[in-house]
């Protein structure tokens, strides 16, 4: 009886911890979702698969940084390196849990890097897909 209660409590604690961990990116994703709805009529949620394609795609705005993967490497669970030699901690939320939790920081880097790699600002759907992909691995 005591064992059963203990197990239930333990599972409840573990479960809520996992929920918090998985949901740390939720406020930012919710924000991008409402932006995406406003930007496009047929928005039907974010996709990790689309995010992966976007992350690996090669663009032609810059010869030095044709892709997100140029600096972040093709495997987001690994550390990347800036063109100036500084290490970038992994983008994957499983490796760097505080990724995509500070909306100011997230916006600063999307603004800079979308401009550098794509030569334009990213859409809310691209940003949401990107974060969803990083949260899924």
């Amino acid at each position: 009886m005591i064992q059963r209660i203990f197990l239930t409590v333990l599972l409840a604690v573990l479960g809520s911890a996992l929920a918090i961990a998985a949901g740390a990116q939720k406020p930012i994703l919710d924000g991008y979702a409402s932006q995406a709805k406003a930007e496009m009529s047929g928005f039907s949620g974010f996709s990790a698969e689309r995010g992966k394609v976007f992350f690996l795609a090669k663009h032609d705005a810059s010869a030095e940084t044709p892709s997100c993967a140029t600096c972040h490497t093709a495997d987001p669970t690994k550390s990347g390196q800036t063109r100036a030699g500084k290490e970038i901690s992994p983008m994957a939320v499983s490796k760097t849990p505080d990724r995509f939790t500070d909306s100011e920081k997230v916006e600063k880097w999307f603004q800079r890097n979308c401009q550098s790699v794509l030569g334009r600002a990213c859409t809310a759907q691209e940003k949401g897909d990107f974060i969803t992909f990083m949260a899924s691995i």
Partner: protein
Amino acid sequence: MTKPTRSLNAATSIRSVMVWDIGIRLFHWSLVLAVLVAVLTGFFGSPGTTSLHLFAGTSIAVLLLFRIIWGLVGSTYARFRNFLFRPSQIIARFRELKAGQHNRYLGHNPLGAAMVIALLLVLLIIVSTGVVVLGGTLKQGPLAFMTPYAVGSIVKEVHQIFAFGLIGMIGLHLAGVIYETLIGREKLIHAMISGKKIEEPHIDHPTTVRTHVVIGLTSFIAISAFGFGLVTTLSAKPGLGVPLTALDSTYEKECGACHYAYHPSMGTVALWTGILEGLPNHFGEDATLPDATKTQILHYLLDNSAEHWDTRISKVLAKPNPDDPLRFTATRFWTRMHSDLPEALFKMKPIGFKGNCAACHQDAKRGLFAPQSIDIPQGDKL
């Protein structure tokens, strides 16, 4: 005719006398070694041999101190007063040599003595100017607290001219020794090892004086200890115009996110203004900052720009390359200082690119760039 021959061979007529005492001999050969190291590291050295050059220079200073004391209180032939010849005597020695005559001297001959005095003086000048160069350009050593970079930089020329002069003088000194050994049949090298020369009855020798070993060694140790204390105390003082405060945290966080946070003393007002105004296209990347952050960082950089300091790095990077004026690694100084490093080295993992100063310069974060603080990582190739 038989009588003189016999008397020449007799032990009473030909005998060895001690000319160079053990102090002089140890001094001479230690000085040879120290000067050899100093000359080699000075002319063919790299940043890695700076410490060795400074060690050799310090050793020469200590040896000179000993020689000066020993010249005042040491044994007969070590005393300066016994080899300070008048110019007329030096000229007379020249005439002798021209005429092929050869008068023997137990101590230094007038010409050799003049060279010894000149060598000691030139070494004193080289050691003293070296301390000024060290203080002014590298902001190290006892004079760092008061020597401007410009002074150190000019005195460096003097240091080098005298070093060239020293090499010429060492050449003449060796030529003299070889001449005396082969033509004059005076075994000078042997004498500087054993300390002994052959005495002949007709050679004048100076009045023998008492060697003040205790006074000599006591004053040598006392002055050395005082000098060590003085040098240590003065060297601990902050260098003139050397930045001491840590980097501004906002600057370090924002700019250091992508690259080594270049020390503000590395850039002039013109450079930092150019960099901050050009952030949307920052060497090919968008590095836009919010206006408030940008203004804050610009103020910090301008308040601490190269114009405010007197370090080597703040002077040498101040001359931009007109083709690429905002890039430190495009300056002529940077190119010259890194010319011996292979291009591939900069692409290796812990370095990554040329502007990653802190990858090798362990004190880059403080803006010091001492040659002794260079540690090139043995990274894996990308």
